[in-house]
């Protein structure tokens, strides 16, 4: 397995003294889908700025495909890692869509024909063929998001880093964007690293999850992470609704350890479980049901207690 990103003992403080990252260690393999979660101000964005060298890091503890990022020239770096930030308005600064998508390739020193090819490919990947001459500022929010993605895809990075890709999108655009990212991962083999707060969308975008809270506090499959109550509690996280619901079903004797995380998975798991038990599952209230449920609810509602911070 090829290691796409390897970070060892990375610490970073802003010039005003805020310690944003402390001894961060992680490894992401080629072709993986990794999601990074953590509370507001945990350092996710700061971490991403290290991945393509926007924040200089002379100690050489961030490597991309085996090479330290501080040794790479900028043209090389952007060939490897492309970062899409949250607010598309921060990333679109050219007077039309074509120029925005062509910006990276031109900085890479490609010739005109290749630049045009790349713009064309990138725009068609995000489903915006024919938008070349439009002014980005006048597009809808969802369209802007996609132009921002295209402007990074045109550099054909092997690793795609996305900071809160679904925030502020309406449900349809959100679902579209998620399947677009999944396509890029599956079809083009792009490694994707995503920071997000939307736990209900997380399972579709993650093979593996890192929990970041200045340091990496946990790592595992989405299922492992969401099963760890203490972890969720101390890091301002929640489990997806579907997952919580199957926990409840378990209290009613559904009794399966195969807890799904997303709606699609739930349908699959449910069908399989019921089929596996000769087409029947029995939900009933047994002597521990009420106790178990009230424990469960009490835990999940730990958020509801008023907190000052």
């Amino acid at each position, binding site marked *: 397995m090829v290691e796409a990103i390897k970070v060892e003992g990375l610490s970073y403080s802003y010039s005003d003294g805020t310690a944003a990252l402390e001894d961060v260690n992680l490894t992401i393999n080629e072709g993986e889908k990794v999601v990074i979660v953590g509370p507001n101000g945990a350092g996710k964005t700061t971490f991403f700025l290290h991945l393509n060298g926007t924040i200089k890091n002379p100690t050489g503890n961030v490597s991309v495909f085996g090479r330290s990022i501080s040794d790479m020239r900028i043209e090389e770096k952007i060939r490897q890692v492309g970062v899409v930030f949250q607010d598309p308005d921060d990333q679109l600064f050219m*007077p*039309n869509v074509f120029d925005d998508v062509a910006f990276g390739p031109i900085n890479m020193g490609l010739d005109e024909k290749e630049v045009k090819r790349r713009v064309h490919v990138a725009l068609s990947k995000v489903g915006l063929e024919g938008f070349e001459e439009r*002014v980005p*500022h*006048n597009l809808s929010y969802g369209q802007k998001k996609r132009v921002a993605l295209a402007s990074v895809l045109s550099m054909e990075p092997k690793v795609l880093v996305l900071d809160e890709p679904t925030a502020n999108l309406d449900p349809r655009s959100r679902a579209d964007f998620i399947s677009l990212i999944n396509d890029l991962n599956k079809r083009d083999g792009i490694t994707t690293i995503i920071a997000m707060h939307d736990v209900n969308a997380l399972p579709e975008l993650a093979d593996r999850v890192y929990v970041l809270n200045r340091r990496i506090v946990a790592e595992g499959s989405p299922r492992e992470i969401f099963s760890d109550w203490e972890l969720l509690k101390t890091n301002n996280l929640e489990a997806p609704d579907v997952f919580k619901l199957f926990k409840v079903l378990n209290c009613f004797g559904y009794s399966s350890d195969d807890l799904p995380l997303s709606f699609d998975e739930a349908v699959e798991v449910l069908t399989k479980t019921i089929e596996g038990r000769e087409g029947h599952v029995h939900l009933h209230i047994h002597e521990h049901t009420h106790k178990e449920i009230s424990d469960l609810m009490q835990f999940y509602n730990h958020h509801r207690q008023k907190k000052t911070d």
Partner: protein
Amino acid sequence: MHISDGVLSFSVIVAGWAIALALNAVILWSCKCKHNMAEEIPKISIMTGAFFVASLVHVSIGPTSVHLLLNGLLGVVLGIMAFPAMLVGLTLQSFLFQHGGITTIGINNVMMGVPALLAYATFRFGYRKGINPSLLGALCGSLGIFLSGILLALMLISTGEEFREIAYVVIMAHVPVMFIEGVITGSVVTFLLKVRPELLPLDKGDMR
């Protein structure tokens, strides 16, 4: 490119304050008559903030670096309100960064603000004459710096003959900045023209 405390003579400083305060009073008063100040105050303030931040950028030329002044652009975008905006910007610059002094806020306001007003007038006049706005923008950007350089030299010389050579040096130092700001202002105007033309004083009729 702001003057620090302690350089200029008493009479130059006083003249600077007098001109600056008078011009500000006239401009704010005329604005009060034409517009709703409750709307203008936050608008001008936030735009001033944007220019303040932009002027923190350093462009390196060879071994040294210059920070941007953008007074020509400020004039083009804010019109006559560029003058009070400049007063606020300079006050904050001297308070927060000690760029320029406290006694020299008035004279710096004149030195940066008057060229901004002239750049604005030039832009409107040139546009009415049908000159290409991008070119005009570049011209206004350079003009702002050029005039500021000249004014600075004049102020130094009127403080004392000792400053004659310094004044030449100052003017020479403005030349590369002139080119840099010309190019930048030109491209900002080109950009705004395509994306948000209503931010430019393109209407042929009334003053903003």
